[in-house]
C-alpha cells in the first residue's frame, strides 16, 4: 500500500500556504551550493524551477531531450495564463479563481492545492512582466485581459496567440542566465531512461545521450520531474510528436504512484483529421470561442457547404443548451457536445467529424481588422493547414487529446510517493481535478516552478538525512544495465514493422474506447486488445540502425513500448471509475440531459495506481478528497 498522506495544512484555507511556508525548514544560503538537484524537462515547470533554484544557490543539473531547452512543448501553448488580479474590476478574486478551478475540475482536485495556485497566480504575472515578457497591453500601457472557458470574468493575460512561447522564453532566459553564471549544468539531447532509488530515496537518473548513444549516470540530492503530459498515448494529439510518458512511467515502475490516469482532456477546438498519414493534430486556441460561434446544421446529413446553409437551419448548440456560458462552456462540456451532434449525423466537412466555428458575426460586429489583430496568427495557421480562408468560410473544428490532468501522485509539497522525487507541472496530477480550465496549465507550471517547489524542496533537504552518493555504486550500475537490456531487447525483435504501425493502432484503440466517451464493456475489452498489440510489438517490431549514434527510431520505439503498458492503466482507471466527471465520461452515468453524473458517495477520491512488479496486477489505491469551501454540486453552465 502506498502512503497517500497529502500533508495538506488544515484550518482557514486562506492562510494555509502562508502557515505552511513558515512551518517548513530552510536551507542556509551558504549550504545550498552543497546540494545538487536534477531537473528533467525544460518546459514552463522545469525551466522556472531550474532558474529559481539556481538563483537560490543550489547546484542544478537540467536535462532535456531537445537540442535546446527553449523547444519544450510549453512553447506551443497559445491562449493565455490566468491570474486573479481583478484588473478588469469585474469581481475577480483569489477566492473566485479557486472556486472556478475546483468547480471546473468537477470536484476531483484538492482544495488546498488549488487555493495555493490561485494565490501565487498574481506573483507569476509580476515575475513574467519583470522578465520582459511582452504581454498584450491596453492603450494606456497597462496589461490587457481576455475571457476563457468556464469563467465569467476576464482574468486571462496573453501575448497574442503565443502566450506559451513568450512565458517559456522568459523562463528559458532566466535559466540560461544561470547557465552562464555556472549555477546550472545544462544537458541537452539527453533522454531520461530510468530513476535511481537508493535506500528508498530518489538519488539520480540514467540518461541516454541521443547523439552518441552513451548511457550516462547522474546523481543528486533530489530529482524533479517536469516531463509534461502523455496525450500521445492516443497517437494523434495536440502534443509535440516527441512528448511521451516514459520518464513518469519509469518512476511509476520504481515505486511512484500514478494518479487519475483516466483524466484526459480532449480539447474542443482542433483542426480535424484529414488522412491516415497524419502525424499530429493542431489546436486552435480556446480564445477563439470568445468571438467564434459554434454550430452544425439542424438536419442530419446536410451536404451543403457551410456558407450555403441559411441562418434558420443552423443549430448553435452550445448557445442553445447553455445560455449563460454559451460558447464559453468548459472544455469537457464543449467537446462532448461536439461529439454528440456529430454522432447524430450533423457533423460537417468530408469526414462529418467536425463542427463549424464561425466568425461571420464577429467580423460584421468588429470588422475584419479587429479580428485579425486578435486572432491573425491562428487564422493564418488554419488556412495554411486546411487551404481554407476562415475570414470567408467557417472554420471546421473537432476535439482532440490535449492535456493530462492525471499524472504522478504528489503531496502538498509536490513530492511523489518516492522521497526525494518531486513532480511539477503537467507531470503531476494535483490541481486540475477531472478537467482543466483554459489558461490554467501555464499558471500551474510556473506556480510549481517559481513559487512552490523552491520552498518545499528546501524543506525536504533540510529535514532529511541525505548521504553522499557516487554514481558508481551498485544501484546506478544495476539501473544502467536494466536500461541497456531494454535497448538491446528492442533491437533484438528484428520483425518487419516500424514503430509507427503500433503507435497508430494503439492510438485508435484508445480514442475509440478510452476517448471522449467510455463504457464498462469498452474499457474492459480494450485492455485485452492492448495486451495483444503489446505482444505483437515485441514479436514484429523493427528498429533500424544501431544504438551507438543518433537514432530517432530507437527513441520512438522505447517510448511506444512504455505507452503500450501505460495505456492499460488508463483503461483500468476508466473502467474502475463508475461515474462521469470532467473529461471522464462514462456513458452509463449521465443525467437525462446528457450531462456528466458524478458519484460523490463512491468516487470523491483520487485513484492512485501502484506498480507491483512484472506480470503482477497493479493496485488501485485511493486518496479521499474533502471539500470544505466549495460545496460539490452538479456543475451547471446553463
Amino acid at each position, binding site marked *: 500500500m502506498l502512503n497517500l498522506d497529502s500533508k495538506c495544512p488544515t484550518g482557514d484555507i486562506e492562510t494555509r500556504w502562508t502557515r505552511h511556508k513558515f512551518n517548513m525548514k530552510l536551507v542556509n544560503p551558504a549550504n545550498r551550493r552543497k546540494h545538487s538537484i536534477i531537473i528533467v524537462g525544460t518546459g514552463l515547470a522545469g525551466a522556472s524551477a531550474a532558474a529559481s533554484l539556481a538563483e537560490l544557490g543550489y547546484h542544478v543539473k537540467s536535462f532535456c531531450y531537445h537540442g535546446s531547452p527553449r523547444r519544450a512543448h510549453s512553447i506551443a501553448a497559445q491562449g493565455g495564463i490566468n491570474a486573479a488580479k481583478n484588473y478588469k474590476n469585474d469581481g475577480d478574486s483569489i477566492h473566485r479563481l479557486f472556486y472556478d478551478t475546483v468547480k471546473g475540475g468537477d470536484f476531483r482536485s484538492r482544495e488546498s492545492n488549488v487555493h495555493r495556485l490561485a494565490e501565487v497566480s498574481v506573483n507569476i504575472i509580476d515575475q513574467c512582466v519583470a522578465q520582459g515578457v*511582452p504581454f498584450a497591453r*491596453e492603450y494606456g500601457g497597462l496589461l490587457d485581459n481576455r475571457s476563457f472557458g468556464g469563467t465569467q470574468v476576464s482574468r486571462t493575460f496573453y501575448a497574442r496567440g503565443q502566450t506559451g512561447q513568450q512565458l517559456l522564453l522568459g523562463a528559458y532566459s532566466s535559466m540560461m542566465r544561470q547557465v552562464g553564471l555556472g549555477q546550472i549544468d545544462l544537458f541537452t539531447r539527453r533522454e531520461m531512461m530510468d530513476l535511481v532509488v537508493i535506500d528508498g530515496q530518489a538519488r539520480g537518473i540514467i540518461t541516454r545521450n541521443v*547523439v552518441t548513444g552513451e548511457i550516462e549516470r547522474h546523481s543528486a540530492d533530489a530529482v524533479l520531474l517536469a516531463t509534461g503530459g502523455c496525450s500521445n498515448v492516443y497517437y494523434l494529439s495536440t502534443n509535440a510528436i516527441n512528448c511521451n510518458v516514459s520518464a513518469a512511467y519509469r518512476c511509476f515502475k520504481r515505486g511512484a504512484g500514478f494518479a487519475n490516469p483516466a483524466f484526459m482532456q480532449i480539447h474542443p477546438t482542433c483542426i480535424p483529421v484529414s488522412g491516415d*498519414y497524419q502525424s499530429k493534430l493542431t489546436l486552435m486556441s480556446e480564445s477563439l470561442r470568445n468571438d467564434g460561434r459554434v454550430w452544425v446544421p439542424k438536419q442530419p446529413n446536410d451536404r451543403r457547404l457551410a456558407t450555403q446553409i441559411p441562418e434558420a437551419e443552423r443549430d448553435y448548440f452550445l448557445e442553445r443548451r447553455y445560455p449563460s456560458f454559451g460558447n464559453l462552456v468548459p472544455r469537457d462540456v464543449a467537446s462532448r457536445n461536439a461529439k454528440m451532434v456529430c454522432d447524430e449525423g450533423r457533423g460537417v466537412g468530408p469526414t462529418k467529424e467536425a463542427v463549424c466555428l464561425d466568425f461571420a458575426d464577429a467580423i460584421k460586429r468588429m470588422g475584419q481588422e479587429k479580428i485579425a489583430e486578435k486572432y491573425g496568427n491562428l487564422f493564418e495557421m488554419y488556412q495554411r493547414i486546411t487551404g481554407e480562408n476562415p475570414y470567408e468560410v467557417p472554420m471546421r473544428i473537432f476535439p482532440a487529446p490535449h492535456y493530462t490532468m492525471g499524472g504522478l501522485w504528489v503531496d502538498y509539497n509536490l513530492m511523489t510517493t518516492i522521497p526525494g522525487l518531486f513532480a511539477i507541472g503537467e507531470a503531476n496530477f494535483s490541481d486540475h481535478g477531472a478537467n482543466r480550465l483554459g489558461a490554467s496549465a501555464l499558471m500551474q507550471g510556473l506556480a510549481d516552478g517559481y513559487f512552490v517547489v523552491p520552498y518545499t524542496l528546501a524543506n525536504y533537504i533540510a529535514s532529511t538525512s541525505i548521504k553522499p552518493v557516487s554514481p558508481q555504486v551498485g544501484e546506478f550500475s544495476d539501473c544502467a544495465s536494466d536500461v541497456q537490456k531494454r535497448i538491446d531487447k528492442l533491437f533484438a525483435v528484428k520483425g518487419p514493422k516500424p514503430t509507427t504501425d503500433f503507435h497508430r493502432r494503439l492510438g485508435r484503440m484508445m480514442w475509440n474506447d478510452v476517448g471522449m466517451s467510455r463504457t464498462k464493456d469498452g474499457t474492459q475489452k480494450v485492455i485485452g486488445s492492448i495486451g495483444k498489440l503489446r505482444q505483437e510489438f515485441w514479436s514484429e517490431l523493427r528498429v533500424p540502425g544501431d544504438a551507438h549514434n543518433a537514432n530517432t527510431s530507437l527513441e520512438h520505439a522505447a517510448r511506444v513500448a512504455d505507452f503500450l503498458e501505460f495505456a492499460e492503466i488508463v483503461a483500468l482507471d476508466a473502467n474502475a471509475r463508475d461515474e462521469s466527471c470532467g473529461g471522464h465520461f462514462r456513458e452509463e452515468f449521465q443525467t437525462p440531459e446528457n450531462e456528466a453524473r458524478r458519484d460523490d458517495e463512491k468516487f470523491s477520491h483520487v485513484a492512485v495506481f501502484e506498480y507491483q512488479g512484472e506480470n503482477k496486477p497493479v493496485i488501485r489505491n485511493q486518496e479521499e478528497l474533502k471539500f470544505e469551501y466549495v460545496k460539490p454540486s452538479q456543475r451547471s453552465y446553463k
Partner: protein
Amino acid sequence: MSAQALMTLKLRIWRQKDAQSAGRMEEHELSGISEHMSFLEMLDFLNEKLTREGKIPFNFESDCREGICGSCSLVINGIAHGPGKAKATCQLHMRSFKNGDTICIEPWRAAAFPVIKDLAVDRSAFDRIISAGGYVSVNVGSAPEGNSIPVPKNVADYAFSSATCIGCGACVAACKNASAMLFVSAKVSQFSVLPQGQAERKSRVQNMVAQMEREQFGACTNEAECSAVCPKEIPFENIVRLNREFIRSNFSPSEFE
C-alpha cells in the same frame, strides 16, 4: 471532397553519418503522396517505407509541428524552410509541389551549426548567445507589481514582434556569410525598447555580439536573405537597431550615460 491524385516525387536527400563523416546526396523515388500531407509527414512516410525495406531512415528534427518550437530545419530546393513565406518547414504542405517534381533536401549549413546526423544540426550556439546576455536579470521574488511598469501599446507590440523569434536558425542558413545578426537583433530589439531592459541595455548588446563572434557566425552584408526566410518575419530593420545599439554602447560602454 473529390478523390485527389496522389503524387510521385524524386527526392534527393542529404545523408551524413555524423559530424566527422563526409556526407552525400542520396536519391529516392516516393509515390502515394497526398497534397494534404505536410512536408514532414511526407518524410515520415519515406522513413516508414525505408524501415519496412530494411534500410536506414533519415534523421531530421521536428517536434511541435505547428511552427513554434523551432526544431525543424530543412533547406528545400535551396531555400531554408522551403517555398512560401512566413512558415517553418513543418508548416509546408505537399500542395506546394506537383507530381513528378524533384525535391532537394539538405540540412542548415553553417560552421556554427555542425551536422549531427543527416539533416539534423547542432544549434546550441544560439543558447550560448542567450546565455551571454539575452535576459533581464530579475530573480524570482523581486518583481514589482505588474501594472507598475506601464508599456505603451505600440512599444509592447514592437517588443512582441521581435520576441516571436523561434530560434530555428533559418536566418543563418539563408545567409551566405552564415550571420546570426537577425537572431541577435530580435532579442536585443525586444529588450532595448522595453523599460525592463534598460538597466542592462549596453552590457547585453556587447556580450551577445561578443558571443556571436566567438561562435564563428559571419558578419552581415545587408542582403536581407535572413528576413526573407524567417518564419516569424522578423524585419531586417531589427539589424539596423542592433547596429545602433552596439555603436551606442561603444560610445559610452558603462551603463551610465
